[in-house]
């Protein structure tokens, strides 16, 4: 099992390198730094000097991958590829356009992001699984049918609608919680409640349906019939037998998400004015701050790869067939 884990860890390395190369190609090869400068400076102010200045401010004035002018290892290190891409492995993401250190900014914004994402995730998981179990318990009845219809309807509604509608109803009409904003400490609860609830409701439709499908598939298996033939009540069959086995496919989809919770949610954070990584990203996209977007792409990938690793690990806990091989 240890060998299995180490092997999965080693497999992550080429993927990380691949992601790094891909982002480098996307940001520096598809368009030259000159193009980016021209685009950001606008057509009017564009002069060779301005472009040069723009590039120098960001360290984009070096050669891409090979600096023939530099001596020794400098030929490799004094390049855009090394300073912008390779350095990311060391947690050095450079500076944003406003001059702030991206790594520090990320560290500060992680907290608010997690404060929304974690409760949304945990609560969403709990609600959706309970709802799905309920539907499966009453499978092939009117309740089940109505539940599925509700799920399909809910997943047909745009996520933007949940946010806008929720804000309007809860904050503007009922005046229950502030419409947006954020503060630290216990005060945060009143700001977090609405985004969390909206996040949970917005996700119920599709995830309930997905869990229900998994449960229904599991419930047709032979071992379920064996469990019933023992005389077990349906409730025990569902919770002890079906749920345990359904956990394996569920883990595949769920565990991988956990590390990426750090990234926050783009929409929720920007609508609710939460100073997390999601709104950081969205602001960077709107301001076309390439350094920040590039850093977020890389961090997101690292977290996703961590999620893949965590998924592999979770199998060893949930599935004895993996644990003993």
């Amino acid at each position, binding site marked *: 099992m240890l060998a299995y884990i180490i092997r999965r860890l080693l497999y992550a390395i080429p993927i990380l390198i691949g992601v790094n190369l891909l982002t480098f190609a996307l940001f520096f090869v598809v368009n030259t730094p000159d193009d980016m400068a021209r685009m950001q400076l606008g057509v009017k102010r564009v002069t060779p000097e301005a472009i040069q200045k723009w590039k120098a401010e960001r360290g984009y004035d070096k050669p891409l991958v090979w600096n023939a002018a530099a001596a020794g290892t400098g030929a490799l290190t004094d390049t855009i590829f090394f300073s912008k891409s390779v350095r990311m492995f060391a947690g050095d993401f450079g500076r944003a356009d406003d001059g702030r250190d991206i790594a520090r900014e990320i560290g500060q914004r992680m907290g608010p992001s997690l404060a929304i994402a974690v409760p949304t995730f945990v609560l969403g998981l709990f609600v959706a699984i309970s709802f799905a179990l309920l539907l499966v318990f009453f499978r092939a009845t009117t309740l089940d049918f109505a539940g599925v219809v509700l799920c399909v309807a809910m997943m047909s509604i745009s996520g933007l609608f949940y946010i806008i509608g929720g804000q309007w109803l809860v904050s503007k009409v009922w005046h229950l919680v502030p419409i947006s904003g954020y503060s630290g400490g216990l005060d945060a609860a009143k700001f977090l409640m609405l985004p969390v609830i909206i996040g949970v409701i917005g996700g119920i439709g599709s995830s309930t349906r997905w869990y229900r499908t998994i449960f229904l598939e599991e419930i047709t298996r032979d071992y379920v019939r064996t469990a019933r033939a*023992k005389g077990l009540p349906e409730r025990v069959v569902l919770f002890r037998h079906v749920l345990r*086995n359904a956990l394996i496919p569920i883990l595949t989809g769920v565990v991988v998400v956990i590390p990426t919770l750090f990234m926050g949610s783009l929409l929720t954070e920007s609508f609710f004015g939460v100073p997390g990584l999601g709104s950081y990203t969205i602001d960077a996209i709107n301001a076309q701050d390439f350094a920040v977007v590039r850093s977020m792409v890389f961090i997101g990938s690292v977290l996703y790869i961590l999620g893949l690793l965590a998924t592999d690990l979770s199998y060893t806990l949930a599935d004895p067939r993996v644990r003993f091989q």
Partner: protein
Amino acid sequence: MSILSVKDLAIQIGAARPVDGVSLDIAAGECYALLGESGCGKSMTALGIMRLLPAAAQVAGGTVEFEGGDLLALPESGMRDIRGGGIGMIFQEPATSLNPVLTVGRQISEALDLHTTLRGAAARARAAELLDQVGIPDPLRRLDEYPFQLSGGLRQRVMIAIALAGEPRLLIADEPTTALDVTIQAQVLDLLDDLRRKRGMALFLITHDLGVVARMADRVGVMYAGQLVEEAPREAFFDQPAHPYSVRLFAALPDAERRGGRLATIPGSVPAADVRHPGCRFVERCSEVMAECRSAPPPWRDVESGQRVRCFLPGAAPAVAAGVGAGDTAIAFGSTPLLEVKDLQVHFPIRRGILQRAVGAVRAVDGMSLRLMPGRTLALVGESGCGKTTAGKAMLQLLRPTAGSVQLDGVELTTRSPGQLRPLRAKMQMVFQDPFASLNPRLRIGEIIAEGMQALGTGAGANRAAEVGTLLEQVGLRADMVTRYPHEFSGGQRQRIAIARALAVNPQLLICDEPTSALDVSVQAQILNLLSDLQRDLKLAYLFITHNIAVVDYLAHDVAVMYLGRVVERGMAEEVLGRPRHPYTKALLAAVPRVDGMRSEVPKLAGDMPSPANPPSGCHFHPRCPLADESCRRAYPAEMLFGATHAVRCIKAV
């Protein structure tokens, strides 16, 4: 006094009635066998009794009384006490019937928890005791293991232990040994019989296998198209079956006496479950049809004491002609072997560790040799996992052998590239086991059959269509079926199509990999007849891969017995089957339940076949061999010849 009494049970799925008025009584301590082919409704009957029917099915009528109480009237909670407590049940597939993520101990104690007062350590001790009773060695260790760590035979024993946990008075066993090898089947049947006698427990055994019925049953019920058609004590039934269907089931069984002759077949197929029958359900396939058979359902009629039948025919149905065969009819064409295999090895590397280096190999085929003369049938016999299918594929070069030589008509195949092999592929073809997986569902029958001609460039373009038609007729289908798709055909018909596809390139050698194991006995007889006709007409040689000894007895000229990747005994059929010398062959033959009910004196094999990844030292068979001693552990035995053709790899063989 009957413990279970079913009256007029009917089960409905939509418009179909897979069970339509079944009545039977089982006495306490009795073994009642429900015999029938696939789709006759026998499993559905059992599930209906347990009220475990799938969601789409419901009981449409009738009563089920267990120990005097009506099960169908019980509330669900009351029924749960019956399940596991009054009636235990075991199923066909031990591989899927246990929960893969719970330990064996947990799954047993769950049942103890429901039906006994035992808890904690006492329950654990009882679970271990149950495992011991079902013959699982080292029960305490097994309690903490998961089902995937057990072999198929052990899993079925665990299933039995679970079913026994609630001390049921009736055990329903739905094809309990169908998925098991014949030596394991013998162990499990012995166990069931033993438990039944010791506990005075009634056994409701559902099976399609006449041999199992003969071995186990006190009384037999024969089911056809949702109804019982005959019920009799075992002796009377095997002495003289009364219903025309029962008679034909016996006549369709292949065995040595019918060798070279034709097996009786039942024409047509079982009617669909949604057909309404004004008369007898067997009428379309019966050769004794009378006018009244079509107009009214036949009533129950007593034949002898205890034997009753649903048929208008007075007395028992006449025996079916076509019994004794002409014996061995094959002539060897020429004296050079068509297929010669020497020291064939197929190893699959086992990759482990961080770098996935090969740390060992599954020796699926580990040095087997055999030769097949033109026009003859060589049966490659062995239990699942012995490597017989892998060997067949390696001979065809569908799998590249690790070492050894395969010569077809004197031409070495193993060294040839795929391109060089192509022209040789017309000479050898394969018929696969699963008629449902062997035809591409998206192609028409005509396209399927023409595929080989197209790929190998045989048969001119214009003639191809005509040839496909001829082939279809040759295998007993109609030429106008070329435009149909596979899903329109039954299992037997599909197997005919697969045979036609192989024949399309005029092969000399046909490798048949368990071609009848997925088929019912009556359909199996049709395919076996077809194969022997084709051999006679086209001078085909067959390499017949099978685990079914009866089929081997019926059609093989030569036999090779495989155990753990090697041939342990080979020779002419009458030598190997008539005078087996290897202890494994003897045990294998003895394990087959016989229709005449005779028991063999050869001791049953204990344990399972070891893993081919880690074969035992010396003779692979020694851990299970009653004759083994120190010398057997040292080296793999060399081949010993008994006469010109009979070779055995055993130092104890005499």
